[in-house]
């Protein structure tokens, strides 16, 4: 798969797996309504890149240098090459949200983003949200409300919840249900997750 555009300057920009999926008529991976449309408008075709390509990704404020094949997703590069394994690969096509990361302040399914296209963007993963000195209150709220069982969907839910609270720090119960509709759990932890997001919201208002 390659798209050619003489106008594009920066290698790798505007070239996403989602764009490709859209092109072949498969639903994309935006987490909230409207994102997909915005993205489609912003989409500009890119240069042809092939073979191993050196890239730098800005993840949790740190530069990660690696070499990738252009076809590799951000998710797979994080997991296989950078040992950032919090984000999980479950559906691998933008449905379940287990791979959610925050790219330029927007929740994204990292299985729908090509690694080369994530260059120059600010990427936040659960490692950054939860493992630093000052973890986001949502992290402990998941524990306190037992919002997890096997825990495989949990990283995606925690990141999606953080991104949701960034946008809407004081959500109603109904807004929580709507705002986290882009993630799926198999063990059935939704009741705890709804409580956890509301509790974290209350904590945020009270200051960390």
């Amino acid at each position, binding site marked *: 798969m390659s798209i050619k555009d003489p106008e594009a300057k920066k290698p790798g920009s505007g070239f996403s797996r989602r764009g490709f999926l859209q092109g072949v008529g498969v639903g994309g991976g935006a987490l909230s309504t409207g994102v997909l449309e915005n993205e489609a408008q912003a989409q500009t075709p890119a240069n042809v890149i092939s073979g191993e390509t050196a890239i730098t990704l800005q993840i949790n404020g740190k530069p990660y240098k690696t070499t990738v094949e252009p076809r590799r997703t951000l998710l797979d590069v994080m*997991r296989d090459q950078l040992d950032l*394994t919090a984000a999980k690969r479950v*559906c691998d*096509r933008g449905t379940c949200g287990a791979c959610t990361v925050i790219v330029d302040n927007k929740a994204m399914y990292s299985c729908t983003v090509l690694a080369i296209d994530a260059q120059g963007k600010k990427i936040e993963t659960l490692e950054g949200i939860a493992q630093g000195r000052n973890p986001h209150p949502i992290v402990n709220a998941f524990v306190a409300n037992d919002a997890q069982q096997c*825990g495989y969907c949990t990283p995606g839910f925690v990141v999606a919840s953080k991104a949701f609270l960034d946008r809407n720090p004081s959500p109603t119960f109904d807004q929580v249900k709507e705002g986290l509709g882009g993630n799926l759990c*198999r063990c059935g*932890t939704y009741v705890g997750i709804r409580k956890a997001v509301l509790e974290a919201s209350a904590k945020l208002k009270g200051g960390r």
Partner: protein
Amino acid sequence: MPSYSWPEPEKRKIIGQRISRLDGLDKSSGRAKYPSDRNPQGLLYAVLLTSPHAHAKVRSIDTSAAEKMKGVTGVRVISKPGTEIQWAGTEVAIVAATSEPLARDAVRAIKVDYEVLPHFVREEDLSKVGARAKPAGEQITGDPEAGFKDAEVTSEGTYAIPVITHCCLEPHGAVIQWEGDKVNYWPSTQAVSTVANELARNLEIPATNVRVQMEHMGGGFGSKFPADRWHIESAHLSKASGGKPVKVFLDRASELTIAGVRPSHFAKIKMGAKKDGTITAWQSESWSTGGFAGGGMAPLPYVFNKIPNFRLNHTAVSLNTGPIRAWRAPNHPQASFLTCSAFEDLAAKLNMDPITFFEKNLQFTPRPDIYKRQLAKGAEMIDWKKNWHPRGQGSGVIRRGLGLGINSWGGAGHASKARTIIHPDGSVELEIGTQDLGVGTRTVLAMIAAESFGLPMSMIKVKLGDNQYPVSGPSGGSTTVGGVSSSTRKATINALTKLFEAIAPSLNTTPDQLEAIDGRIRVIGNPDKGMSWKQACQKLGVTPINEMGENDPKKPEGLNTAGAAGVQMADVTVDTETGRVKLNRLVAVQDCGLIVNPKTAESQVLGACIMSVCAALTEERVMDPQTGRVLNADMEFYKLAGISDIGEILVHMDITPENDKRGIIGLGEPCAIGGIAAIANAVANATGVRVPQVPLIPKNVLAALHGQGRNA
């Protein structure tokens, strides 16, 4: 011999408290390492080539091009020429390469010549399955003819519940490394202590040479017991590469196609009753598929198995579809759905409230008193009296209804051994070859050890997930919590007894006069006479205490037992124009024994309720009769309920002094059984029409409303 029995409720310090799971922060911070997260040095990636045909014979297979491709370290043929493939997705070959994309490239370069044979993949119409039907014979109890003659009202219906998949979020797989004569194995498994045997047998090496380790796993639900073929093949690929580790995890399509499904169940059921509601007879002709091997009969009539007169016929249907694996409470959700649906339909025909009808027949169940109490509790929680109306008496486009379903399960503890080590510095370790599937096993074990020793939980190091620890059973059938809690209780009491023996002389007393409470060892009845835990352990000198404990399922000694009943009730709203079903509320009243950690126990029940919502409203594996493949082997069209689809869920655990005395009972399965029936019955109550098949998707609801359903 010391007493192992659980401390009296009023004396417990930790058991019964609502404790947050110990590995919670590891999971919510992303630190928890699952088998699929392992990235050891030099890792290779294995990818399967699977059959696109549901029924075919492999004529030839050419791997020469794949073998020469970039990054490829090994190619193995799994289905050799001459092999007859019986379902699409069957493993044909496997490739290992230095990256996953390179392995996928090589898989695409393998050429297979198939002789395609006719396939058969749908079982819903028994009249069309022909030779694929394998009748299981007739089973008669009492005199069904007389029973139906006795009946004043009869009711007949056909009900269907489809094949669903486990859809584990972490796919089936492992990282595996065959180095020298040793195999290091990191599988996503429900059977840490036993899975090595199966792997070793297939690799023809001694089981002692296989080390199994697993800290966390991403869901199994009954499907992750075996050493799967792709694990075994990956071990060979590791060996062929000179001992590099190999990661093999199924892609989502294979996960939903070959890693196990729950059998379907279809039944034509006829029931007869007196006008007062007393059931006189049951007759069912059921059929099911569990893939090529057919499918066993669900336990019908469910729970009400003392109905005096019944006739059962069952037919297993062999399909060219992926095989079944145990699915949380095998065959029970199907049996509950079929039985409770038929009950609700007969109750409606009798113009009876289904609660009254169920109550009227509780003498046919093994535990009438418990169900009676639970029906009353559930009715109170869902406000049945206020919200229930006779079937179909709603009007308008949007209609509301209530329904109920029941469950029953065993849940006694499995065989388990545990070891406790008390070190001279006062630190405590618990070693046990069990696994925590995410149900809170680690936490429960730390609670039990802390309770025995009178210590805070933070002083207990729980070590599980390793086959070098004492053998504990696989996690299936809700047997884990009873087994591991009992062995841990015994191991900790045995170790404590040794500690008492070591320090009794220095307190001028005998070991049986000592107790461990609040971080101290003291003389019973003389709390001032004692010493701190640490001082006591120092008296051990340089030798730790190392004691075992065992749960023998034949002699649980009151620590654990079987038998959990339960009732679920649903409140739904149905849009009769769009066919959309909205769950307003689901309540679960769950019988239990001694509950170690009410917080995680409740989560188990909540999760099971949500799984029931998925099976009732969204889940179905759809086979394509043309291609013979699964049409929805993905997560867009294999639908799980989302966070906004589940309504309000209320759980009531029957935590009572009487239940506490029974000992521990496993809870994983029973709560996953009755919800489907409850929701389906609520829809029948709301619309006045039986939607004969779940899931209750608009297509099925509208077909029933417009008279095109099975029972039209």
